[in-house]
């Protein structure tokens, strides 16, 4: 048996019981690696439960900076009796099985291809920790201490982190550090040179930060000038609102300590979006955050905002559907429903952030876009990005940047117009009309906003030609939107290459890793990362430049592929689908295997491939 070896390249899995205080210990571990300058990607795989059910925390450490989920694990901290058997069986051959040896391993744990590391966590705590209330919690810190010894993590990084964490409660720092040292000493004394996995300080990370996408989004909304929030609690979006509230309570205080934001927990998702729409209609920047089930409920209001042309921002932190689905697992399965949400002919702007920096930037930009285009803008994040800590380039803000409030006329401006103002008159030819805000002027600018059919002057109409003209103008506005939304990123576009991948959002990390692997294997692929819907012309040009396009996404029905086919009139045979929909983040291995399968199938049916390529 060969033990797995490696420096700054392994996956460690923590198997815990939900609600046992393991999350902060596991985060401490991940943060220590981050602070040693090593790319790290922690992923919380947790149940829809508050206490008692199994939860896993998977940390990938990778010097090369591959931060997508890798799949498999080389080291497991198995401290949950409920799942210990599975955790044991699932460990990679040559891997390390770490358990609480206060109780011996059952006799049927007989794998010979792994290394077993037993540390009596409970016993150590019972002997050494005087406060019985703390023992359970500190058991988690003891294993972090032991890991530090086994993996060569600098102990000072951990003790510094604890000291910082308990700055406000210094009394708690001492027992935590004691627990850390307990584990460290025990592992040093008993398991010298047992573990061949190593962590070594690196210069891969310099000015990076590590932050969850939802905090980044909340911060972006703060910088984007959002003031009114309607929201309803739903995993995994709730922490967007919590972050915004927390930032607002710190950075949006007036001289009387009142807050420059109105945050309302609504009775349901319908009301949450209704509140945001009412605020935006009245000239504030409003938003809500939700997940798939909320988007279903909000469809009615999305249609109103589309048709009445009210700016609004909706943050969809996607989770596994359909229906309640798996509330605490990830997916990119709201793409098609969000794009066309609501009855009648409706289309919505979608933005696809792939990292916290983009969450921040797109959240701030979404308010500009919504007001410029006078329509809903939906940010399509997901649980993996939103709730996990992700390494990110630092956020920046340009103090010269000004909010773009779009076409808004004051009463004075209306009075000075040479012709009669109409709320839905397209005078510029871009499909975007001029709106007014309530309360602005005694004589000019009042109009009646409605979701029923209206003419250019906002009057109710059932005149068929007038209705159709308005719908055609909305389609014109949609074309205009293509110039406003973030452009796709061409990751690679070399000439003479037939194959390409298209991906977006959290699929990016694993897709880029797969791209590197393919390159090493001398298989040449180009790649484009989508950042918004509607698609720009360059998306379709990119597709036309290739024979075969692999659209990689995290849902069963290849929703993005459908959207591309539909919007670009692309021949379906040209677009191959790579999907992952089990609720866990997609891996590079899965992408590579899917591409290989598709290519071999295509090779077996040359005619089909040819037809597809001839488009």
């Amino acid at each position, binding site marked *: 048996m060969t033990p797995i070896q490696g420096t700054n390249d392994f996956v460690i899995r923590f198997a815990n019981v939900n609600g046992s205080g393991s999350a902060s210990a596991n985060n401490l571990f991940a943060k220590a690696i981050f602070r040693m300058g090593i790319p790290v990607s922690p992923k919380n795989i947790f149940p829809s439960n508050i206490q008692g059910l199994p939860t896993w925390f998977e940390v990938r450490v990778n010097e090369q900076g591959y931060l997508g989920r890798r799949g498999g694990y080389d080291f497991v901290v198995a401290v949950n009796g409920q799942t210990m058997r599975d955790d044991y069986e699932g460990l990679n051959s040559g891997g390390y099985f770490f358990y609480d040896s206060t109780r011996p391993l059952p006799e049927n744990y007989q794998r010979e291809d792994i290394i077993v590391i037993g540390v009596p966590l409970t016993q150590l705590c019972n002997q050494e920790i005087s406060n019985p209330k703390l023992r359970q919690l500190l058991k988690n810190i003891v294993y972090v201490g032991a890991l530090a010894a086994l993996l060569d993590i600098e102990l000072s990084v951990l003790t510094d982190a604890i000291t910082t964490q308990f700055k406000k409660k210094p009394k708690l720092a001492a027992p935590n550090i004691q627990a850390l040292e307990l584990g460290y000493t025990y592992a040093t004394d008993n398991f010298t040179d047992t573990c061949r996995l190593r962590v070594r300080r690196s210069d891969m990370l310099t000015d*990076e*930060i*590590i*932050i969850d996408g939802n905090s980044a989004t909340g*911060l972006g909304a*703060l*910088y984007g*000038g959002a*003031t*009114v929030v*309607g929201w309803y609690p739903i995993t995994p979006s709730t922490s967007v609102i919590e972050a915004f509230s927390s*930032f607002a309570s710190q*950075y*949006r205080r*007036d001289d*009387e300590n*009142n*807050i*420059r*934001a*109105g945050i*309302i927990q*609504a*009775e*349901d998702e*319908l*009301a*949450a*979006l*209704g*509140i*945001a*729409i*009412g*605020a*935006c209609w*009245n*000239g*504030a920047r*409003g938003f809500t955050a939700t997940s798939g089930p909320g988007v279903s409920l909000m469809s*009615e209001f999305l249609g*109103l905002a589309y048709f009445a042309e009210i700016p609004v921002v909706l943050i969809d932190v996607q989770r596994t559907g359909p229906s309640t689905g798996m509330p605490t697992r990830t997916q990119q399965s709201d793409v098609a429903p969000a794009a066309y949400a609501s009855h009648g002919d409706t289309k919505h702007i979608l933005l696809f952030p792939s990292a916290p920096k983009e969450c921040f930037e797109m959240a701030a930009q979404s308010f500009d876009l919504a007001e410029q285009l006078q329509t809903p803008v939906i940010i399509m994040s997901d649980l993996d990005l939103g709730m996990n800590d992700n390494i990110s380039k630092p956020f920046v*803000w340009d*103090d010269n940047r000004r*909010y773009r409030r779009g076409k808004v006329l004051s009463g004075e401006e209306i009075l000075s117009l040479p012709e009669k103002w109409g709320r839905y008159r397209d005078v510029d030819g871009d499909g975007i009309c001029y709106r*007014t*805000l*309530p*309360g*602005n*002027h*005694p004589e000019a*600018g*009042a*109009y*009646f*906003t*409605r*979701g029923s059919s209206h003419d250019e002057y906002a009057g*109710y109409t059932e005149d068929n030609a007038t209705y159709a003209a308005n719908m055609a103008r909305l389609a014109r506005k949609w074309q205009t939107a293509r110039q406003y939304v973030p452009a796709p990123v061409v990751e690679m576009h070399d000439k003479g290459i037939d194959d390409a991948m298209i991906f977006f959002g959290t699929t990016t990390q694993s897709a880029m890793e797969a791209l590197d692997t393919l390159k090493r294997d001398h298989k040449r692929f180009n790649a484009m990362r989508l950042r918004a819907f509607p698609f720009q012309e360059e998306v379709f040009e990119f597709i036309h430049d290739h024979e075969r396009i692999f659209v990689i996404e995290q849902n069963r029905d290849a929703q993005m592929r459908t959207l591309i086919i539909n919007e670009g009139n692309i021949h379906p045979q040209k677009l191959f689908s790579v999907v992952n929909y089990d609720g866990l983040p997609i891996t590079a291995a899965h992408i590579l295997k899917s591409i290989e399968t598709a290519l071999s199938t295509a090779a077996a049916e040359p005619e089909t491939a040819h037809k597809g390529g001839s488009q």
Partner: protein
Amino acid sequence: MTYRRPTFRHPDLPKNERGYTKREYEGGISTLCAGCGHDSISSAIIQACYELALEPHRVAKMSGIGCSSKTPAYFLGKSHGFNSVHGRMPSVATGANMANRDLTYIGVSGDGDTASIGMGQFAHVVRRNLDMTYIVMNNGCYGLTKGQDSATADRGSAGKKGVPNPFESIDLCEVAIQLGSGFVARGFSGDKEQLVPLLKAAISHKGFSLVDVISPCVTFNNTQQSTKSYSWVRDHIEATATFDFIPLMQEITTEYDKGSATSVTMHDGSILNFYKSDDSVDVTSRRAAIDALEKHREQNQILTGLLHVNEDLGDTHAILKTTQSPLNALSEQELCPGAATLQHIIQKYR
């Protein structure tokens, strides 16, 4: 046939304190059925706003869907209006009010829009104590879809089709009192004398005010067997107490017999004077107000007038401690913490 109101204005029309004539509070021509109670309510709203000398453009008219929700097109033509989606006006009004606390929000809804599809939103806008006046044009039926019973139709009441309603009815006033509304009143579209001061007081109230107005549907629910017909309501109406509403700006000219009147000072300094009869209700008590509604219900009577008032409640902005300036008027400097602060913030994530 054209539906245009002549633009000609008589030069000698009387003006209110702010210099507006009553005409300046009017809206478009109604497209509701001739004799619809809702038109009388629109006209009472016009009268109330004129008498309160509101600046028309500082009013925002909010509504849902239904016959009632169309009416904001028929009054206050110089105000912005928002005809939203069915049963969802309260949330849109909440957002609008959060964005600009300085405007006057008048919401118009119906019994279907409020007591059925919008019951959830109605309940929660009351709980939030949003500073708005919520007017229900209550006819006990769905007019736009041809007369189906609504949730406020009394058990046993029958509309045009003659089938008695088998379900219990919802008393929106009682619900609103129970949910903590600080101003609850009931009027009758056929009694403008009572309705106009009720509306004036409701609009002057700081926080959520409900005015539930029985408004017969002449086309579908004005039958002998209907408890929301003109004749039934006229025969069974009862009032809590007569009262005067004295807006802040108005000079008090009448002398009152102190012994017979109780006064409530409104948030803006206006005064409500009640002239009690022996069996009249203490409208400042929530419990007494609910008792009075139940008592009259047992007696097959509709209790109207001001049912409950409490001027001590803070509105949503007070509860949330939002800044005094309208949120939609804050400058970028007040909203955006800037580049240097951002670097400070992200330092926590290193």
